[in-house]
Protein backbone atom coordinates (compact mmCIF):
# COMPACT_ATOMS: atom_id res chain seq x y z
CA UNK A 1 0.00 0.00 0.00
CA UNK A 2 1.29 3.47 -0.82
CA UNK A 3 2.16 5.70 2.09
CA UNK A 4 2.10 9.44 2.64
CA UNK A 5 4.28 10.68 5.48
CA UNK A 6 3.73 14.13 6.97
CA UNK A 7 6.57 15.59 9.01
CA UNK A 8 5.25 18.19 11.43
CA UNK A 9 2.23 17.72 13.70
CA UNK A 10 0.95 21.29 13.64
CA UNK A 11 -1.85 23.21 11.97
CA UNK A 12 -0.68 22.29 8.45
CA UNK A 13 -0.07 18.64 9.32
CA UNK A 14 -3.55 18.20 10.80
CA UNK A 15 -5.17 19.96 7.84
CA UNK A 16 -3.30 17.74 5.38
CA UNK A 17 -4.59 14.61 7.14
CA UNK A 18 -8.16 15.95 6.95
CA UNK A 19 -7.96 17.02 3.30
CA UNK A 20 -6.17 13.88 2.08
CA UNK A 21 -8.85 11.65 3.56
CA UNK A 22 -11.73 13.92 2.54
CA UNK A 23 -10.41 13.88 -1.02
CA UNK A 24 -10.24 10.13 -1.12
CA UNK A 25 -6.65 9.16 -0.27
CA UNK A 26 -6.97 5.49 0.60
CA UNK A 27 -3.34 4.58 1.22
CA UNK A 28 -1.58 4.65 4.54
CA UNK A 29 -0.86 7.89 6.36
CA UNK A 30 1.60 8.81 9.10
CA UNK A 31 2.04 12.06 11.00
CA UNK A 32 5.40 12.67 12.63
CA UNK A 33 5.85 15.30 15.36
CA UNK A 34 8.65 16.58 17.61
CA UNK A 35 6.36 17.40 20.51
CA UNK A 36 4.52 14.73 22.50
CA UNK A 37 1.19 16.35 21.59
CA UNK A 38 -1.27 15.78 18.77
CA UNK A 39 -1.70 18.91 16.59
CA UNK A 40 -2.94 21.88 18.57
CA UNK A 41 -3.72 25.54 18.04
CA UNK A 42 -0.84 27.88 18.73
CA UNK A 43 -2.64 31.25 18.55
CA UNK A 44 -4.38 30.85 21.95
CA UNK A 45 -1.08 30.07 23.68
CA UNK A 46 -0.20 33.74 24.06
CA UNK A 47 -3.80 34.69 24.79
CA UNK A 48 -6.52 32.56 26.40
CA UNK A 49 -4.28 29.62 27.34
CA UNK A 50 -1.77 31.86 29.08
CA UNK A 51 -4.50 33.79 30.86
CA UNK A 52 -6.06 30.55 32.09
CA UNK A 53 -9.35 31.17 30.25
CA UNK A 54 -8.83 28.12 28.06
CA UNK A 55 -7.75 24.70 29.33
CA UNK A 56 -5.29 22.50 27.49
CA UNK A 57 -7.90 20.04 26.22
CA UNK A 58 -9.47 22.80 24.14
CA UNK A 59 -6.26 23.59 22.29
CA UNK A 60 -6.25 20.38 20.30
CA UNK A 61 -7.33 20.84 16.70
CA UNK A 62 -8.99 17.45 16.41
CA UNK A 63 -10.26 14.80 18.76
CA UNK A 64 -8.09 11.69 19.08
CA UNK A 65 -10.82 9.69 17.33
CA UNK A 66 -10.28 11.85 14.28
CA UNK A 67 -6.86 10.27 13.70
CA UNK A 68 -8.25 6.79 14.35
CA UNK A 69 -11.06 7.31 11.88
CA UNK A 70 -8.62 8.82 9.41
CA UNK A 71 -6.37 5.75 9.88
CA UNK A 72 -3.49 8.10 10.53
CA UNK A 73 -0.56 6.76 12.49
CA UNK A 74 0.63 9.35 15.01
CA UNK A 75 4.37 9.26 15.68
CA UNK A 76 4.60 11.98 18.32
CA UNK A 77 7.74 12.77 20.25
CA UNK A 78 9.87 11.15 17.56
CA UNK A 79 11.49 13.97 15.59
CA UNK A 80 12.51 13.21 12.03
CA UNK A 81 16.28 13.32 11.87
CA UNK A 82 16.95 12.84 8.15
CA UNK A 83 15.30 12.30 4.79
CA UNK A 84 16.77 9.81 2.31
CA UNK A 85 15.18 10.88 -0.95
CA UNK A 86 16.79 8.09 -2.98
CA UNK A 87 15.54 5.28 -0.75
CA UNK A 88 12.42 7.37 0.02
CA UNK A 89 12.71 6.96 3.74
CA UNK A 90 12.43 9.27 6.74
CA UNK A 91 14.69 8.54 9.69
CA UNK A 92 13.10 9.07 13.08
CA UNK A 93 14.66 9.50 16.49
CA UNK A 94 14.27 6.28 18.49
CA UNK A 95 11.82 4.89 15.97
CA UNK A 96 13.83 3.61 13.01
CA UNK A 97 12.86 4.48 9.46
CA UNK A 98 9.60 5.22 7.77
CA UNK A 99 9.26 4.54 4.04
CA UNK A 100 7.19 6.99 2.01
CA UNK A 101 5.79 7.33 -1.46
CA UNK A 102 4.95 10.98 -0.95
CA UNK A 103 6.28 13.28 1.73
CA UNK A 104 4.87 16.52 3.14
CA UNK A 105 7.18 18.80 5.08
CA UNK A 106 5.19 20.87 7.56
CA UNK A 107 8.04 21.47 9.96
CA UNK A 108 7.05 24.96 11.06
CA UNK A 109 9.34 27.28 12.92
CA UNK A 110 11.23 27.55 16.17
CA UNK A 111 11.84 30.61 18.32
CA UNK A 112 14.83 32.76 17.58
CA UNK A 113 17.12 32.56 20.58
CA UNK A 114 18.54 35.63 22.22
CA UNK A 115 22.30 35.19 22.38
CA UNK A 116 23.35 37.93 24.77
CA UNK A 117 25.17 37.37 28.09
CA UNK A 118 23.00 35.78 30.76
CA UNK A 119 20.33 34.61 28.35
CA UNK A 120 20.44 31.05 29.75
CA UNK A 121 19.41 32.13 33.26
CA UNK A 122 16.34 30.54 34.83
CA UNK A 123 13.45 32.99 34.82
CA UNK A 124 13.85 33.69 31.09
CA UNK A 125 11.12 32.20 28.92
CA UNK A 126 10.18 31.82 25.28
CA UNK A 127 6.75 31.10 23.89
CA UNK A 128 6.19 28.61 21.12
CA UNK A 129 4.54 25.50 22.53
CA UNK A 130 2.30 24.20 25.30
CA UNK A 131 5.33 23.31 27.42
CA UNK A 132 6.63 26.89 27.23
CA UNK A 133 3.38 28.33 28.59
CA UNK A 134 3.09 25.64 31.26
CA UNK A 135 6.60 26.52 32.45
CA UNK A 136 5.92 30.24 32.47
CA UNK A 137 2.44 30.50 33.91
CA UNK A 138 3.22 29.69 37.56
CA UNK A 139 5.40 32.81 37.59
CA UNK A 140 2.58 35.04 36.38
CA UNK A 141 1.66 36.19 39.88
CA UNK A 142 0.06 39.52 40.69
CA UNK A 143 2.74 42.13 41.26
CA UNK A 144 5.52 40.13 39.59
CA UNK A 145 7.80 42.27 37.44
CA UNK A 146 7.84 41.05 33.86
CA UNK A 147 10.24 42.22 31.16
CA UNK A 148 9.09 41.52 27.62
CA UNK A 149 11.94 41.53 25.12
CA UNK A 150 10.53 42.25 21.67
CA UNK A 151 7.43 44.29 20.92
CA UNK A 152 5.97 41.99 18.27
CA UNK A 153 2.73 40.03 18.25
CA UNK A 154 3.84 37.53 20.90
CA UNK A 155 5.43 40.11 23.17
CA UNK A 156 2.45 42.45 23.09
CA UNK A 157 -0.15 39.71 23.47
CA UNK A 158 1.71 38.42 26.51
CA UNK A 159 2.02 41.98 27.83
CA UNK A 160 -1.76 42.44 27.56
CA UNK A 161 -2.48 39.16 29.37
CA UNK A 162 0.10 39.94 32.04
CA UNK A 163 -1.44 43.34 32.74
CA UNK A 164 -4.83 41.70 33.09
CA UNK A 165 -3.32 39.30 35.63
CA UNK A 166 -1.84 42.22 37.57
CA UNK A 167 1.83 41.98 36.66
CA UNK A 168 4.09 44.99 36.24
CA UNK A 169 5.08 44.93 32.59
CA UNK A 170 7.92 46.59 30.71
CA UNK A 171 8.46 46.04 26.99
CA UNK A 172 11.90 46.53 25.40
CA UNK A 173 11.83 46.93 21.63
CA UNK A 174 14.96 47.44 19.55
CA UNK A 175 13.17 49.14 16.64
CA UNK A 176 11.56 52.57 16.75
CA UNK A 177 8.03 51.15 16.84
CA UNK A 178 6.12 48.06 17.93
CA UNK A 179 5.12 45.24 15.56
CA UNK A 180 7.32 46.91 12.95
CA UNK A 181 7.54 43.80 10.78
CA UNK A 182 3.80 43.23 10.76
CA UNK A 183 1.91 46.52 10.69
CA UNK A 184 2.06 50.10 9.37
CA UNK A 185 3.15 53.15 11.37
CA UNK A 186 -0.35 54.31 12.33
CA UNK A 187 -1.24 50.86 13.70
CA UNK A 188 2.08 50.62 15.56
CA UNK A 189 1.52 54.02 17.12
CA UNK A 190 -2.04 53.12 18.10
CA UNK A 191 -1.04 49.91 19.86
CA UNK A 192 1.88 51.64 21.58
CA UNK A 193 -0.59 54.16 23.03
CA UNK A 194 -3.01 51.41 24.05
CA UNK A 195 -0.34 49.50 25.92
CA UNK A 196 0.91 52.62 27.65
CA UNK A 197 -2.65 53.50 28.67
CA UNK A 198 -2.96 49.93 29.97
CA UNK A 199 -0.02 50.48 32.28
CA UNK A 200 2.77 48.95 30.22
CA UNK A 201 6.13 50.73 30.30
CA UNK A 202 7.28 50.76 26.70
CA UNK A 203 10.91 51.38 25.72
CA UNK A 204 11.46 51.80 21.98
CA UNK A 205 14.87 51.79 20.29
CA UNK A 206 16.18 50.01 23.35
CA UNK A 207 17.77 46.64 22.66
CA UNK A 208 18.58 44.57 25.73
CA UNK A 209 22.33 44.12 26.19
CA UNK A 210 22.58 41.52 28.95
CA UNK A 211 20.71 39.60 31.61
CA UNK A 212 22.07 39.41 35.13
CA UNK A 213 21.41 37.31 38.20
CA UNK A 214 22.94 34.86 40.62
CA UNK A 215 21.51 31.51 39.58
CA UNK A 216 18.32 33.20 38.47
CA UNK A 217 17.26 36.26 36.48
CA UNK A 218 17.36 39.39 38.64
CA UNK A 219 17.85 42.21 36.17
CA UNK A 220 18.65 43.18 32.63
CA UNK A 221 20.80 45.88 31.09
CA UNK A 222 19.31 48.15 28.46
CA UNK A 223 19.82 51.77 27.49
CA UNK A 224 22.87 51.96 29.76
CA UNK A 225 20.84 51.16 32.86
CA UNK A 226 20.12 48.18 35.06
CA UNK A 227 16.42 47.25 35.32
CA UNK A 228 15.26 44.73 37.94
CA UNK A 229 12.79 42.02 37.03
CA UNK A 230 11.40 38.73 38.31
CA UNK A 231 10.93 37.16 34.90
CA UNK A 232 11.42 37.77 31.20
CA UNK A 233 9.58 36.68 28.10
CA UNK A 234 11.64 36.82 24.92
CA UNK A 235 9.65 37.21 21.71
CA UNK A 236 12.05 38.21 18.97
CA UNK A 237 10.68 36.16 16.12
CA UNK A 238 11.03 32.67 14.75
CA UNK A 239 13.25 30.78 12.34
CA UNK A 240 11.95 28.22 9.85
CA UNK A 241 12.84 24.57 10.37
CA UNK A 242 14.52 24.00 7.01
CA UNK A 243 17.46 21.81 8.06
CA UNK A 244 15.84 18.48 7.18
CA UNK A 245 15.01 19.74 3.71
CA UNK A 246 18.35 21.45 3.22
CA UNK A 247 20.32 18.38 4.29
CA UNK A 248 18.27 16.34 1.84
CA UNK A 249 19.33 18.70 -0.94
CA UNK A 250 15.98 20.42 -1.42
CA UNK A 251 16.13 24.10 -2.41
CA UNK A 252 15.82 26.41 0.61
CA UNK A 253 16.17 30.12 1.01
CA UNK A 254 14.47 31.82 3.96
CA UNK A 255 12.17 28.77 3.88
CA UNK A 256 11.69 25.55 1.95
CA UNK A 257 11.04 26.78 -1.58
CA UNK A 258 7.72 25.61 -3.03
CA UNK A 259 5.84 26.34 -6.25
CA UNK A 260 2.18 27.34 -6.28
CA UNK A 261 1.13 23.72 -5.92
CA UNK A 262 3.29 23.41 -2.78
CA UNK A 263 5.76 21.14 -4.54
CA UNK A 264 9.46 21.21 -3.80
CA UNK A 265 11.63 21.76 -6.86
CA UNK A 266 13.45 18.74 -8.23
CA UNK A 267 11.49 16.01 -6.42
CA UNK A 268 8.01 15.05 -7.52
CA UNK A 269 7.45 13.13 -4.27
CA UNK A 270 8.14 15.96 -1.83
CA UNK A 271 5.78 18.79 -0.86
CA UNK A 272 5.86 21.45 1.86
CA UNK A 273 3.28 23.63 3.61
CA UNK A 274 2.96 26.26 6.31
CA UNK A 275 5.36 28.53 8.18
CA UNK A 276 8.44 26.61 6.95
CA UNK A 277 7.84 27.40 3.28
CA UNK A 278 8.75 30.20 0.96
CA UNK A 279 6.55 30.83 -2.04
CA UNK A 280 6.05 33.44 -4.74
CA UNK A 281 2.91 35.52 -4.36
CA UNK A 282 0.63 36.29 -7.25
CA UNK A 283 2.25 39.72 -7.57
CA UNK A 284 5.62 38.07 -7.96
CA UNK A 285 7.23 38.47 -4.54
CA UNK A 286 8.97 35.74 -2.64
CA UNK A 287 7.66 35.45 0.92
CA UNK A 288 7.61 33.20 3.92
CA UNK A 289 4.38 33.64 5.89
CA UNK A 290 3.81 32.87 9.55
CA UNK A 291 0.08 32.41 9.94
CA UNK A 292 -2.76 29.97 10.41
CA UNK A 293 -4.31 30.84 7.04
CA UNK A 294 -1.19 29.91 5.08
CA UNK A 295 -0.76 26.69 7.06
CA UNK A 296 -4.34 25.62 6.35
CA UNK A 297 -4.46 26.69 2.72
CA UNK A 298 -1.03 25.40 1.73
CA UNK A 299 -1.78 22.08 3.41
CA UNK A 300 -4.96 21.83 1.34
CA UNK A 301 -3.07 22.70 -1.83
CA UNK A 302 -0.31 20.21 -1.06
CA UNK A 303 -2.90 17.49 -0.43
CA UNK A 304 -4.60 18.21 -3.74
CA UNK A 305 -1.27 18.16 -5.57
CA UNK A 306 -0.30 14.87 -3.90
CA UNK A 307 -3.52 13.36 -5.17
CA UNK A 308 -2.75 14.48 -8.70
CA UNK A 309 -5.28 17.31 -8.91
CA UNK A 310 -3.20 20.43 -8.33
CA UNK A 311 -4.80 23.86 -7.96
CA UNK A 312 -2.80 27.08 -7.95
CA UNK A 313 -2.27 28.88 -4.64
CA UNK A 314 -3.96 32.28 -4.95
CA UNK A 315 -5.30 32.82 -1.43
CA UNK A 316 -5.14 36.21 0.22
CA UNK A 317 -3.29 35.80 3.51
CA UNK A 318 -4.97 36.88 6.72
CA UNK A 319 -3.76 37.39 10.26
CA UNK A 320 -5.17 38.45 13.59
CA UNK A 321 -4.11 39.49 17.05
CA UNK A 322 -6.10 39.98 20.25
CA UNK A 323 -4.81 42.53 22.73
CA UNK A 324 -7.00 43.76 25.58
CA UNK A 325 -10.47 44.30 24.09
CA UNK A 326 -9.03 44.98 20.65
CA UNK A 327 -9.07 42.71 17.66
CA UNK A 328 -6.54 43.47 14.97
CA UNK A 329 -7.35 41.77 11.67
CA UNK A 330 -5.10 41.98 8.64
CA UNK A 331 -5.65 40.76 5.11
CA UNK A 332 -3.13 40.87 2.28
CA UNK A 333 0.53 41.84 2.39
CA UNK A 334 1.84 45.39 2.71
CA UNK A 335 4.84 46.52 0.69
CA UNK A 336 7.07 49.58 0.95
CA UNK A 337 5.71 52.34 -1.27
CA UNK A 338 2.03 51.54 -0.67
CA UNK A 339 -0.20 54.57 -0.33
CA UNK A 340 -1.86 54.44 3.09
CA UNK A 341 -5.50 55.48 3.47
CA UNK A 342 -6.92 55.85 6.96
CA UNK A 343 -10.61 55.06 7.45
CA UNK A 344 -12.07 56.06 10.80
CA UNK A 345 -10.38 57.57 13.81
CA UNK A 346 -7.90 55.58 15.95
CA UNK A 347 -9.09 57.52 19.01
CA UNK A 348 -12.48 55.83 18.60
CA UNK A 349 -10.66 52.45 18.89
CA UNK A 350 -12.23 51.42 15.61
CA UNK A 351 -10.42 52.14 12.36
CA UNK A 352 -8.69 50.62 9.37
CA UNK A 353 -5.61 51.37 7.31
CA UNK A 354 -5.77 50.45 3.65
CA UNK A 355 -2.63 49.92 1.58
CA UNK A 356 -3.21 51.00 -2.00
CA UNK A 357 -1.08 49.93 -4.91
CA UNK A 358 -1.82 50.87 -8.54
CA UNK A 359 -5.42 51.68 -7.70
CA UNK A 360 -6.19 48.41 -5.94
CA UNK A 361 -5.97 47.36 -2.31
CA UNK A 362 -2.87 45.36 -1.43
CA UNK A 363 -3.56 45.00 2.27
CA UNK A 364 -5.88 46.16 5.02
CA UNK A 365 -5.23 46.43 8.74
CA UNK A 366 -8.46 46.69 10.71
CA UNK A 367 -8.86 47.37 14.42
CA UNK A 368 -12.28 46.35 15.78
CA UNK A 369 -13.48 46.91 12.22
CA UNK A 370 -14.79 43.67 10.75
CA UNK A 371 -16.52 45.19 7.69
CA UNK A 372 -13.29 46.89 6.63
CA UNK A 373 -11.40 43.64 7.13
CA UNK A 374 -13.85 41.34 5.35
CA UNK A 375 -14.71 43.68 2.49
CA UNK A 376 -11.03 44.54 2.18
CA UNK A 377 -10.17 40.87 1.90
CA UNK A 378 -12.70 40.43 -0.86
CA UNK A 379 -11.55 43.52 -2.77
CA UNK A 380 -7.94 42.36 -2.53
CA UNK A 381 -8.89 38.94 -3.82
CA UNK A 382 -10.91 40.37 -6.69
CA UNK A 383 -8.35 43.06 -7.53
CA UNK A 384 -11.11 45.67 -7.58
CA UNK A 385 -10.12 49.28 -8.34
CA UNK A 386 -11.19 51.55 -5.47
CA UNK A 387 -11.25 55.27 -4.90
CA UNK A 388 -9.05 56.40 -1.99
CA UNK A 389 -11.54 59.21 -1.25
CA UNK A 390 -14.45 56.81 -0.85
CA UNK A 391 -12.34 54.45 1.25
CA UNK A 392 -11.54 57.28 3.63
CA UNK A 393 -15.17 58.39 3.86
CA UNK A 394 -16.84 56.51 6.73
CA UNK A 395 -20.27 57.71 5.57
CA UNK A 396 -19.90 55.31 2.63
CA UNK A 397 -20.62 51.80 3.93
CA UNK A 398 -17.93 49.23 3.14
CA UNK A 399 -20.41 47.16 1.16
CA UNK A 400 -20.83 50.05 -1.32
CA UNK A 401 -17.22 51.15 -1.40
CA UNK A 402 -16.23 49.79 -4.84
Amino acid at each position, binding site marked *: MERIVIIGAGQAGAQAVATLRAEGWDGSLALVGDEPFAPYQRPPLSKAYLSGAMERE*RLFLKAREFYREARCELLLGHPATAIDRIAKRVHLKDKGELPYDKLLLATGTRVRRCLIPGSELPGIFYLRGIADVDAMRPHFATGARLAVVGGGYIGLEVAAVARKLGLEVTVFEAMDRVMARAVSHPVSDFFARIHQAGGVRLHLKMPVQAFEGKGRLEALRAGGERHEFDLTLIGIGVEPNVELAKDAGLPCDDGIVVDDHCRCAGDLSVFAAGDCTQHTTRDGRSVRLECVQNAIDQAKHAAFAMLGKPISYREVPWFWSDQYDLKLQIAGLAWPGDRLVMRGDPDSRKFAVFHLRNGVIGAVEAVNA*APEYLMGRKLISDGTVVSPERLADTSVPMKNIA
Partner: protein
Amino acid sequence: MPKIKYIEHSGREHEADVPVGWSVMEGAVKNLIPGIDADCGGACACATCQVYVDPAWLSKLPPKSDMEETMLDFAQELRPNSRLSCQIKVTPELAGLIVQMPKSQH
Protein backbone atom coordinates in the same frame (compact mmCIF):
# COMPACT_ATOMS: atom_id res chain seq x y z
CA MET B 1 -23.20 17.82 29.63
CA PRO B 2 -25.75 19.61 27.45
CA LYS B 3 -26.64 17.72 24.30
CA ILE B 4 -26.57 19.68 21.07
CA LYS B 5 -28.00 18.58 17.77
CA TYR B 6 -26.11 19.47 14.60
CA ILE B 7 -27.77 18.98 11.23
CA GLU B 8 -25.60 18.88 8.14
CA HIS B 9 -26.72 20.66 4.98
CA SER B 10 -27.59 17.22 3.57
CA GLY B 11 -29.98 16.65 6.46
CA ARG B 12 -27.73 14.18 8.29
CA GLU B 13 -28.13 14.63 12.04
CA HIS B 14 -25.52 14.38 14.79
CA GLU B 15 -25.90 14.68 18.53
CA ALA B 16 -23.01 15.61 20.77
CA ASP B 17 -22.50 16.16 24.48
CA VAL B 18 -20.67 19.46 24.73
CA PRO B 19 -19.04 20.62 27.97
CA VAL B 20 -20.42 23.79 29.53
CA GLY B 21 -18.12 26.68 28.67
CA TRP B 22 -17.12 25.33 25.29
CA SER B 23 -18.48 26.90 22.13
CA VAL B 24 -21.01 25.28 19.83
CA MET B 25 -18.24 25.32 17.19
CA GLU B 26 -15.88 23.32 19.42
CA GLY B 27 -18.62 20.80 20.10
CA ALA B 28 -18.80 20.08 16.36
CA VAL B 29 -15.10 20.12 15.57
CA LYS B 30 -14.12 17.92 18.51
CA ASN B 31 -16.84 15.40 17.68
CA LEU B 32 -15.91 15.04 14.01
CA ILE B 33 -19.13 16.65 12.83
CA PRO B 34 -18.53 18.03 9.34
CA GLY B 35 -19.76 21.36 8.02
CA ILE B 36 -18.02 23.81 10.33
CA ASP B 37 -14.50 24.85 9.30
CA ALA B 38 -13.56 27.32 12.04
CA ASP B 39 -10.21 28.08 10.43
CA CYS B 40 -9.25 30.60 13.12
CA GLY B 41 -10.08 28.23 15.95
CA GLY B 42 -12.78 30.39 17.46
CA ALA B 43 -11.26 33.86 17.56
CA CYS B 44 -14.12 35.43 15.59
CA ALA B 45 -11.60 36.18 12.86
CA CYS B 46 -12.62 34.10 9.86
CA ALA B 47 -16.43 33.66 9.62
CA THR B 48 -16.15 29.99 8.61
CA CYS B 49 -18.30 28.55 11.40
CA GLN B 50 -21.73 29.88 10.47
CA VAL B 51 -24.78 27.93 11.63
CA TYR B 52 -28.52 28.42 11.35
CA VAL B 53 -30.08 28.29 14.78
CA ASP B 54 -33.42 26.52 15.14
CA PRO B 55 -35.95 29.40 15.36
CA ALA B 56 -37.34 28.07 18.64
CA TRP B 57 -33.90 28.55 20.21
CA LEU B 58 -32.99 31.93 18.75
CA SER B 59 -34.37 34.01 21.59
CA LYS B 60 -32.63 31.84 24.20
CA LEU B 61 -29.16 32.70 22.91
CA PRO B 62 -27.17 35.64 24.22
CA PRO B 63 -27.23 38.52 21.73
CA LYS B 64 -24.57 38.89 19.06
CA SER B 65 -21.57 41.11 19.76
CA ASP B 66 -20.89 43.91 17.28
CA MET B 67 -17.98 41.89 15.96
CA GLU B 68 -20.09 38.79 15.34
CA GLU B 69 -22.82 40.89 13.78
CA THR B 70 -20.46 42.47 11.28
CA MET B 71 -18.56 39.26 10.54
CA LEU B 72 -21.86 37.58 9.75
CA ASP B 73 -22.94 40.44 7.58
CA PHE B 74 -20.27 39.34 5.12
CA ALA B 75 -20.82 35.61 5.36
CA GLN B 76 -22.21 33.61 2.44
CA GLU B 77 -25.79 32.33 2.48
CA LEU B 78 -26.78 34.50 5.41
CA ARG B 79 -30.21 33.99 7.00
CA PRO B 80 -32.01 35.83 9.80
CA ASN B 81 -31.16 32.95 12.15
CA SER B 82 -27.46 32.85 11.25
CA ARG B 83 -24.92 32.87 14.06
CA LEU B 84 -21.19 32.22 14.32
CA SER B 85 -20.99 28.98 16.27
CA CYS B 86 -17.66 29.96 17.86
CA GLN B 87 -19.44 32.81 19.62
CA ILE B 88 -22.20 30.70 21.19
CA LYS B 89 -21.00 29.54 24.58
CA VAL B 90 -22.64 26.34 25.80
CA THR B 91 -24.60 26.72 29.05
CA PRO B 92 -26.88 24.24 30.86
CA GLU B 93 -29.86 26.19 29.49
CA LEU B 94 -28.80 25.32 25.95
CA ALA B 95 -29.34 21.57 26.42
CA GLY B 96 -31.24 20.43 23.34
CA LEU B 97 -30.10 23.29 21.10
CA ILE B 98 -30.48 22.54 17.39
CA VAL B 99 -28.28 24.11 14.73
CA GLN B 100 -27.98 23.51 11.03
CA MET B 101 -24.93 24.01 8.87
CA PRO B 102 -24.87 25.94 5.57
CA LYS B 103 -23.87 24.34 2.29
CA SER B 104 -20.37 25.81 2.44
CA GLN B 105 -18.36 28.00 4.79
CA HIS B 106 -16.28 29.64 2.03
